[in-house]
């Protein structure tokens, strides 16, 4: 096994035992990046020199015997929709190609406070709108398991980078599945935390009532370590919730005895392939052998989740993206006649097709005459969807479903059919609508491509889903490395 195949906790142990230096880790990942990045195309920006300088500082701290956290001196990547001071933050959009934030997102600060070394920014679907990373204005990332396939999206660059061993862990953002779906398609672990657990300050907003930042990692322990680093109330994000700090590493317990799992039949219906269904039921049987019990349940409003999502998310996006007007920051057209023409031309040139489509859908659904029929109705259905989960959690500790309805699809396969692309999020969007946490972990393979299992918990009960995920991972052999 190569150094780049190791997990965060494994290299942390090597660092603490002084068997490796942070500088050597940075050098190793950059060697790996040089070897595979041409194929995988995960990164939009890399900071090698700065990373090496920071690694030297961390090595000095290790040498001096300073007490250091789990991420100290370890290379991490972040999705390019999180603001990094003095470093371009593009959202994979021409609109923000030259945008240099004057501040760091809270999660960036938190990672750096832990001593993590941010080595680069990862590719994504433009403004996080997409499920394949093909909507990036700059490049198409590829799935390290098979380069003809998409890595999923929108955090596809983060997922591909971790899977290919280009970095030890990465942050993504998840509005309707954008952490969990790429994690599933790449065979790694991804957590969408409870809405309000992680600060969104400095995350370029897509749909503010759904967006949440979370980790993508090689195993569950790494995900817990990363979540420890980024969780917590932030006065700069009024939707982040003041709560007592939880050490998620304490949830890494290999035990599901007596755990009650709900299995909603709606997540195994139309669109979910028989092979995926079979695999998830096998996984459930394994959990039963380990002492858990499951019961098939119904979350009756599930079928309305995706249409609800495609009202809420575009409505919020059309409002959030109204700020891109070519005046204060972002792209401005070179020639224009008057202010309205400046707005229109700048936006037309700056935004890609999918972003425009969602702005149009959102504007339409918020327009007078339609507001009640679309937006207000969606807000009410949202209540019903959330109630479904609340009721289920009265009886069950967690809910298990597939993360995505199928294995990764081929590059170009769904680009002409927006609705087909939206369907790949059918198992993940209800979770954002309800605001509950969910983790995706590897559950096996179909035709040589990884499949993810989604474990959903109650609001702010990340511990239970981490515990179930950890137990499954410790007792199975699906957590494998892509051979690239």
């Amino acid at each position: 096994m190569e150094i780049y195949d190791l997990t965060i906790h494994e290299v942390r142990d090597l660092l603490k035992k002084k068997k490796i230096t942070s500088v050597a880790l940075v050098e190793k990942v950059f060697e790996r990046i040089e070897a595979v990045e041409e194929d995988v195309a995960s990164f939009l920006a890399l900071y090698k020199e700065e990373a090496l300088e920071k690694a030297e500082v961390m090595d000095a701290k290790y040498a001096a015997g300073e007490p250091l956290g789990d991420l100290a001196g370890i290379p991490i990547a972040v999705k390019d929709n999180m603001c990094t001071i003095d470093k371009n933050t593009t959202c994979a959009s021409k609109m923000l190609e030259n945008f240099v934030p004057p501040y760091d997102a809270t999660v960036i600060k938190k990672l750096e406070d832990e001593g993590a070394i941010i080595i680069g920014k990862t590719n994504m679907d433009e403004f996080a709108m997409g499920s394949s990373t093909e909507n990036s204005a700059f490049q198409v990332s590829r799935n390290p398991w098979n380069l003809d396939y998409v890595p999923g999206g929108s955090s596809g660059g983060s997922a591909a980078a971790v899977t290919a061993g280009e970095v030890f862990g990465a942050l993504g953002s998840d509005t309707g599945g954008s952490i969990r779906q790429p994690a599933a398609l790449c065979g790694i672990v991804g957590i969408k935390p409870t809405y309000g657990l992680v600060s969104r300050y400095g995350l370029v907003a897509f749909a503010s009532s759904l967006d949440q930042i979370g980790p993508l990692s090689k195993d569950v322990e790494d995900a817990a370590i990363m979540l420890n680093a980024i969780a917590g109330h932030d006065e700069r994000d009024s939707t982040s919730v003041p709560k007592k700090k939880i050490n998620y590493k304490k949830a890494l317990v290999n035990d599901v005895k007596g755990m009650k799992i709900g299995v909603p039949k709606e997540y195994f219906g139309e669109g979910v392939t028989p092979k995926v269904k079979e695999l998830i039921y096998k996984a459930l049987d394994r959990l039963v052998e380990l002492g858990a019990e499951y019961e098939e349940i119904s979350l009756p409003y599930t079928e309305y989740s995706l249409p609800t999502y495609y009202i809420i998310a575009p409505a919020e996006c059309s409002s959030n993206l109204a700020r891109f007007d070519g005046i204060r920051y972002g792209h401005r057209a070179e020639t224009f006649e008057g202010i309205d023409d400046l707005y229109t031309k700048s936006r037309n040139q700056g935004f890609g097709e999918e972003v425009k489509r969602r702005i149009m859908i959102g504007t339409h659904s918020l327009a007078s005459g339609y507001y009640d029929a679309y937006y207000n109705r969606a807000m009410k259905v949202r209540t019903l969807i959330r109630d479904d989960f609340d009721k289920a959690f009265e009886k069950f500790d967690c809910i298990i479903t597939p993360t995505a309805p199928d294995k990764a699809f081929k590059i170009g396969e769904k680009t002409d059919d927006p609705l087909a692309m939206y369907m790949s999020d059918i198992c993940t969007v209800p979770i954002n609508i309800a605001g509950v946490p969910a983790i995706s972990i590897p559950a096996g393979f179909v035709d040589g491509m990884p499949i993810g299992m989604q474990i959903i918990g109650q609001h702010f009960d990340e511990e239970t889903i981490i515990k179930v995920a950890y137990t499954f991972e410790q007792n199975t052999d699906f957590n494998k490395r892509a051979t690239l």
Partner: protein
Amino acid sequence: MALSVKDVEHVSKLSRLSFGEDEKKEFVEKLNSVVDYIEKLEEVDVEGVKPTYHALDIKNVFREDEVKPSFKRKDILNNAPDSEGGCFRVPKVVK
């Protein structure tokens, strides 16, 4: 309700976007497939259901009104496509 080319023109004006004739037709087609899909919500009985604007019941969040340092003007204008004398510069907006 299916969108027409005219609807697309209206919405694009509200969105400060514009499309060529061919693009408009393509947009009508792709938007309509999405609009048809979201109209599925019409079958849900929402009588008496309260709307959920946020997944968590967060009420207004207050803090002390203390003066704190803010960004430097220069740092903010750094990203402006055009600025002059410490201000954003825009084309003439009054007729």
